[in-house]
């Protein structure tokens, strides 16, 4: 058993389609400065740093080195972790491991991306197997669209059902001053948007954003002195299935990596009834259909019950388990930071610092990361020291 660990400070940039005023390194510093200010610490208090982004997105392969002026990593232990879409969550989990190990008391976790600097799809296809999958099924949209059609076929879900997720998250983003897209989007808007790959329309899919996020993690005994209300790690789980698209998802079984990661996380946290015991969730939903299907895989409702669960308002603000008070990935997607934003926003909810997007009386918050060939990270944070 490792040491208990909590998030004691979070920082993020104001996310935008492009940031001509700063380089990646300078943008990273904005998030780091905000996180340190939130924790009322200085860079001198930080013992180690974990940083990550998407390989090939800015053509900077050694961001741990490249970023030191911005991350504060000059002459400190710093390493890069990059796992595709899950990167931000994996970086947070790696920072958690750092502190839990007992070797470091205060660790900074950083995720960032400047999508505006490259061709997202051109870069993202390098996640898939060069020989077998890359040139036939690449980029985020086709594989997700295939998952969606399988779900529609099996459970009779409609495009309007999925569009509710987009409307919900984009509406939530109005409460988040940091969100990239802060204009409401209705079900009708989404239905009228151009078809990309059936059934995914432009309004169903996440944007490309520039932005960065940083979290300060601290060890038991240290965390309580830094934060009035630390967000304690109750669970952290990482699951990868296969890298072959055809193997990685049995569409009738669901998103297996998310199911397994969730199950592991609930066991770690001692949670038996997720929908009752989790108070808010920040889910990496890169497209609207994920908001129906993956909540089944996470266990908020049973298989095939996603549409009913969402239509009954359970996942809206004020519902049983609000999903994505921040506006989620549909509203902001600086990819290497995206999964960390889920963890950071979950921490914000636990710490009670959400302002207009705060869900009342949060005890347990769940965050997910999703990436590449259908793999998953799950983190559960809590007001309760485990």
């Amino acid at each position: 058993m490792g040491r208990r660990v909590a998030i004691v400070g979070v920082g993020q940039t104001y996310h935008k389609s492009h940031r001509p005023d700063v380089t990646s390194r300078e943008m990273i510093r904005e998030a780091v400065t905000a996180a340190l200010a939130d924790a009322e610490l200085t860079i001198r208090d930080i013992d180690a740093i974990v940083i990550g982004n998407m390989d090939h997105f800015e053509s900077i392969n050694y961001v741990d080195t490249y970023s030191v002026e911005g991350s504060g990593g000059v002459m400190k232990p710093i390493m890069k972790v990059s796992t595709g879409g899950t990167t931000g969550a994996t970086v947070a989990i790696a920072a958690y491991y750092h502190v839990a190990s007992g070797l470091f008391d205060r660790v900074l976790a950083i995720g960032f991306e400047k999508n505006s600097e490259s061709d997202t799809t051109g870069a993202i296809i390098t996640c898939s197997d060069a020989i077998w999958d890359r040139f036939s099924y690449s980029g985020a949209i086709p594989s997700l669209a295939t998952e969606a059609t399988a779900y529609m076929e099996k459970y009779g879900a409609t495009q309007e059902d999925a569009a509710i997720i987009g409307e919900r998250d984009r509406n939530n983003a109005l409460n988040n001053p940091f969100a990239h897209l802060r204009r409401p989007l209705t079900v009708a808007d989404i239905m009228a948007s151009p078809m990309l790959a059936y059934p995914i329309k432009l309004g169903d899919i996440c944007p490309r954003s520039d932005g960065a996020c940083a979290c300060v993690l601290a060890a038991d005994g240290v965390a309580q002195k830094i934060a009035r209300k630390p967000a304690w790690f109750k669970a952290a789980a990482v699951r990868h299935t296969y890298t072959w698209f055809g193997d990685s998802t049995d569409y009738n079984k669901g998103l297996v990596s998310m199911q397994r990661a969730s199950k592991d996380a609930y066991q770690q946290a001692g949670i038996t009834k997720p929908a009752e015991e989790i108070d808010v969730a920040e889910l990496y939903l890169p497209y609207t259909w994920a908001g129906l299907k993956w909540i089944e895989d996470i266990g908020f409702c049973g298989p095939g019950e996603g549409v009913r669960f969402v239509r009954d308002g359970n996942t809206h603000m004020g519902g049983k388990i609000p999903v994505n008070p921040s506006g989620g990935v549909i509203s902001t997607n600086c990819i290497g930071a995206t999964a960390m934003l889920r963890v950071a926003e979950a921490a914000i909810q636990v710490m009670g610092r959400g302002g207009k997007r705060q869900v009342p009386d949060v005890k347990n918050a769940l965050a997910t990361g999703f990436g590449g060939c259908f793999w998953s990270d799950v983190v559960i944070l809590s007001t309760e020291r485990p």
Partner: protein
Amino acid sequence: MAEWLKDVEPLTLKGRIAVPYSWWVGDTGSRFLMSLRDDRKILGTKCPSCGTVFVPPRKNCGRCFVDIEEWVEVAAEGVIEAHTIVHYAYPVQPVKPPFAYALIKLDGTDVGFLHLIKKDLDKIKNGLRVKAKFKEERTGSILDIDSFELI
């Protein structure tokens, strides 16, 4: 010959990934490049904490981790701190060989400035003074300085 090669032809799949990038230079770097382009002047920034003058300019000091606001014009000449003379050709190199890569400490700065020396390659030595030669047609690039030349 390896045994398996008798029965199996070792195939490869040909691929090429060409990802176009446009890196935002940012407000600090853009101001530096504009000054090269428009005024033939080299600008640096000075850390308010340790006093280091950086060129190219930095928005913050990595070591002190403080914002940098102060701009200083630095000399277009300085001293060769270290160099190498390149004899092989490669597509990423900015000019054809032979040429020298040199770290030049411009007067009034505290860090080396990486640039090229194209002439008098048989005469250059560390410690010698060099001066920037600007291109006539400038585009807002570090290569608006054509190269450095011995004084």
